[in-house]
């Protein structure tokens, strides 16, 4: 059968993906081989409760897993003022701003109290019409983080871990109006496209508490120091997140989990240019019928600062599909 890919590329790609999956499975097996005498609970559980994963809240569990999250969202209709020239105002537009993000995370458990994780992420925001692209520009970031997760407390109902991480991001900002403003203001060497690298190092704490087999609570907090997307400026960034979740599987045999969360963060990949805090409200529905994987839809609502000339920041509604495979 011929596939619409050139030559043998399809087969080479399929073979590469198979080798990658086998590698991950083998890697997990090698590290977990001393646990074969025990019943291996792949999904994170405490007190009989299986926790729902949220991409806004770091997991407190030392497990080997691969996680992928894809999200897309949009603000409501916003009106942006233009540039005043004399008594007139030019380039004033109406439009929406769209957001997208993709994140892949792999965490490898080394022993019962230590894991190493790495994430790769890409995200961006852009106007959904030519007018808002002109005014707001196109902002994207890409990069990743790498860190250690180590156990601090483990009890029957409660587990807490700490983490130590380094985050490396690169932001690309295309802003035509900013470029015109720079020319008007006689800024030396104005640029339409600005690339800003960001490096942060930080620590965090995350915990999980299981009230019973149905209800659980998770929290995570981190603090980091480093560069911001404002070139040359460094600051302290922090975030705190709290999630309550319920799993209907143990008592009602319905493989559905549900969670509600709240996050406050100043991390640059969420807030983009400014040193501000953003409040994020989350809800998630997940399939909880498997001990090996979790799949779910997470909905988030938060305010975003699009332009300093707006009186009120618009709300962003985002839908994210999350997949997590435990090895």
């Amino acid at each position, binding site marked *: 059968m011929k596939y619409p890919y050139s030559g043998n590329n399809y087969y080479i790609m399929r073979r590469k993906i198979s080798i990658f999956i086998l590698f991950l499975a083998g890697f997990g097996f090698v*590290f977990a081989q*001393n646990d074969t005498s025990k019943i291996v609970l792949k999904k994170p559980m405490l007190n009989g409760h299986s926790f729902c994963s949220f991409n806004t809240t770091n997991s407190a569990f030392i497990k080997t897993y691969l996680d992928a999250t894809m999200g897309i969202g949009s603000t409501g209709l916003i009106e942006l003022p233009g540039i005043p020239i004399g008594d007139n105002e030019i380039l004033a537009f109406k439009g929406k701003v769209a957001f997208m993000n993709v994140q892949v995370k792999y965490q490898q458990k*080394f*022993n019962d109290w*230590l894991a190493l994780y*790495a994430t790769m992420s890409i995200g961006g925001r852009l106007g959904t019409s030519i007018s808002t692209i002109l005014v707001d520009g196109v902002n994207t970031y890409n990069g990743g983080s790498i*860190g*250690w997760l180590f156990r601090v407390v483990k009890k029957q109902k409660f587990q807490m871990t700490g983490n*130590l991480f380094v985050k490396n991001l690169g932001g690309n900002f295309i802003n035509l109006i900013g470029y015109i403003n720079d020319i008007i203001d006689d800024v030396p060497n104005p640029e339409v496209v600005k690339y800003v690298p960001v*490096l942060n190092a930080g620590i965090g704490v995350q915990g999980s508490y299981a009230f019973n087999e149905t209800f659980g609570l998770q929290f995570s907090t981190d603090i980091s120091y480093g560069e911001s997307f404002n070139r040359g400026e460094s600051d302290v960034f922090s975030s705190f997140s709290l999630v309550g979740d319920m799993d209907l599987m143990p008592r009602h045999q319905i493989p559905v989990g549900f969670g509600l969360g709240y996050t406050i963060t100043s991390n640059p990949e969420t807030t983009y240019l400014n040193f501000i805090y953003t409040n994020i409200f989350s809800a998630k529905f997940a399939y909880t019928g498997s001990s090996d994987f979790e799949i779910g839809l997470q909905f988030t609502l938060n305010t975003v600062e699009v332009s300093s000339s707006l009186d009120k920041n618009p709300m962003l509604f985002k839908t994210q599909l999350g997949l997590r495979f435990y090895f």
Partner: protein
Amino acid sequence: MRIKYILVVVLLALFFRGNAQLNVGAFGGINMSKLKGDKPKNASYTSSLGMEFGLLLDLKLSDHVIMSLQPSYAQKGSKISFTVSNVDEPVDSLRIGLEYIEIPILFKIDANNKRFYALGGLEAGFPVRAWAEYINQPGEKEDISSIVSKINVVMHFGVGYRIPLGKTILSIEGRYLQGLNNVIGQENPNYPYIPRVKTGGFKFLVSYEIPLFGQ
């Protein structure tokens, strides 16, 4: 004076004999480093291959934790490629070389099977040589050590695998490194091709260890 040193060595030897395991060894390998950070206009950084070798001193702190001191010499650097009109691929134009004496303090954490281990820690690197070379003019190296910071702090993340060879151990390691401070802090009009940058990259090392004290 010499007697004092001998006494200290004997005391340390007795301490390690009674309480801990000490391995000494040597290691070597390659490092694929590149600069990360601000870029000159129409430029990108690509990896540069360098060698690394050093000595190691592994002190076992507990059943799963080893503290490792690994003084070494390392060649780092990067190529700077520029986008040229009418040419599809970026053209390698400049090679930056940074040679360091590095003193990392790492922690190795054993997996349950004691063969695999994770490692992490911090390193202080002291530059011994820094140069820039135009690729189409090989041999003409420009000394840039005056603009390179006196210390480079680097964070290590890695994994390794031990192969016992009788009483000695051969280890294979892969590490990811991320520089935490700028190698070149500010843009310099004399060297416009290197703005605010940090080091980063991967290391692949092989080490050979001999147990000195302990089990």
